[in-house]
């Protein structure tokens, strides 16, 4: 795995004391890396510092210790190389859909004007299926449409890396599915590198190549990294037909329900924060197909 496009080394973040004693670090000793063209999701309970990590990757927040290196250079501040889709879409409400996108495009290519600018912006309006609404103001859009504008804005500057903070959390299931498919398509076509926060296990399995599991905070750590062994051409409609899907899903749910807390209280003895265990639950205890007749039934998962 070419895991060296983006490297995170020894990341830790402690917020200053409000009053009285200093709070513990939100997370500590975080190491991971993302390869070019890879889609990596991070999963963990709220408060474990996912957004903080994403903000540090974006350059919007500074770590208390550790470094982020992208493309051979240390990340010291925000950059047009890293496009961010904010959790609360963060559209400028006084600009129309089109102008919001243009706002970003003009920052990326200040010399563009006229036809190039127009066609580029329109391409990304169309990409997220908002043609017809490009002259509306954000207040006239539904939550899903706003989120799509945020996505179009981030994509339109064609960053080397996309950072998405629970981008589909506020959407209804139908819209979420549509946009997930759009994201998949874009990644397939452009080989986009993506780092994404989600709390939706299915979304993580559908979109990502690897899934980083965080223990509960404070002093959260990476418990393990799940490698998604489903083929990359997976689709929402038939993903569940693959028995691996249930194994991965059960593994993730089991982690969220109990192991994330247990591991926070008592870390695994042999854990090395520099090399968090990489697991492949999809391929675990591969039963011979003969004795697992009811293929639809979720296999009971027992990780030794």
């Amino acid at each position, binding site marked *: 795995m070419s895991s060296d496009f983006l490297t995170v080394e020894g990341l830790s973040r402690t917020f200053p004391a409000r009053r009285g004693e200093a709070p513990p670090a939100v997370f500590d000793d975080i190491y991971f890396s993302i390869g070019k063209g890879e889609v990596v999701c991070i999963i963990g309970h709220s408060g474990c510092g996912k957004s903080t990590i994403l903000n540090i990757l974006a350059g919007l927040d500074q770590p208390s210790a550790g470094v982020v290196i992208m493309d051979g250079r240390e990340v010291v501040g925000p950059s047009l190389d890293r496009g*961010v889709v904010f959790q609360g879409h963060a559209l400028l409400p006084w600009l129309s859909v089109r102008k919001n996108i243009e706002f970003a495009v003009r920052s990326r290519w200040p010399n563009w004007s006229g036809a190039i600018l127009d066609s580029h912006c329109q391409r990304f309006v169309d990409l997220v299926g908002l043609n017809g609404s490009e002259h509306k103001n954000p207040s006239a859009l539904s939550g899903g449409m706003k989120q799509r504008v945020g996505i179009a804005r981030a994509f339109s500057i064609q960053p080397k890396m996309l950072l998405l903070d629970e981008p589909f959390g506020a959407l209804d299931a139908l819209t979420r599915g549509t946009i997930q498919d759009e994201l998949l398509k874009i990644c397939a076509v452009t080989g986009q590198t993506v780092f994404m926060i989600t709390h939706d296990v299915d979304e993580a399995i559908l979109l990502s190549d690897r899934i980083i599991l965080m223990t509960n905070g404070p002093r959260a750590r990476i418990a393990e990294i799940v490698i998604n062994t489903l083929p990359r051409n997976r689709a929402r409609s038939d993903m569940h037909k693959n028995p691996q899907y249930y194994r991965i899903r059960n593994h993730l749910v089991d982690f969220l329900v109990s192991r994330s807390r247990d591991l926070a209280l008592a870390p695994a003895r042999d854990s090395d924060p520099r090399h968090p265990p990489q697991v492949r639950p999809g391929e675990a205890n591969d039963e011979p197909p003969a004795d697992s007749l009811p293929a639809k039934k979720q296999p009971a998962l027992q990780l030794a």
Partner: protein
Amino acid sequence: MARSLDFKALILSLGLLAVLVFAWYQATLPQATPAASANPEYTALMGGNSVAKSGMPTPAEFARTFRRQLAHPFYDHGPNDKGIGIELGYSLARVLAGFTLAALFAIPLGFVLGMSPLMQRAFNPYIQLLKPISPLAWMPLALYTIKDASASAIFVIFICSLWPMLSNTARGVATVKRDWLNVAKTLEMSVWRTALRVILPAAAPTILIGMRISMGIAWLVIVAAEMLVGGTGIGYFVWNEWNNLSLTNVLFAVLMIGLVGLLLDLIFGGLSRLVAYED
């Protein structure tokens, strides 16, 4: 529903006007006082009329003055006799000059205070101390240092317009959504471009509230300031007509002050709608 409510309100307003005018009419009716007829010498002394006349104009007299004044609003017969339009023009010019100067000063400074917590804290004690001072209290200092009556009035307008614009700009800028600033940062926008393209439109509604309050105060203060400095302007006009004992003209001027104030407020209301956004 809203339509009929508006209509009812209009009827009620007109009714209220009718009641007021009628009360006014009743209160200023020329009355044949028994005392006057009982004392002919006194009556003779008072001008020989058999009816005592109140100093207050009747509605009819007022209407005549109103028509006459508005027929020639811009005549100029020397320093103490100018049309109402000219006097209002002087006042408006002073208010606009003082207000514009204040805006040019307060809005950029407000930006700095809003963007920098350090500057905000450093300036705050002075602002808190200066804000409650009546703008007219500055008048002697202004007259002494500037040595020009009209410029002193402008200075007083400047001072009183300053505070609402300053504090509203600072607050509007300081409370711009963090997300919007982060968008600008991730797009590597310069501080200058961020201020113009993100902070200014985001804070514009709050800034305009400050401008509207400032304008309201400025229009209140100009009347008093011109009464003090004299010469020209609607405030001086009121004072002059009081000295002439022409309550009709005073009343007329009071009404015009109200109308112009209303108009100024409407203008700023319209500007507010232009920069409003729905989040």
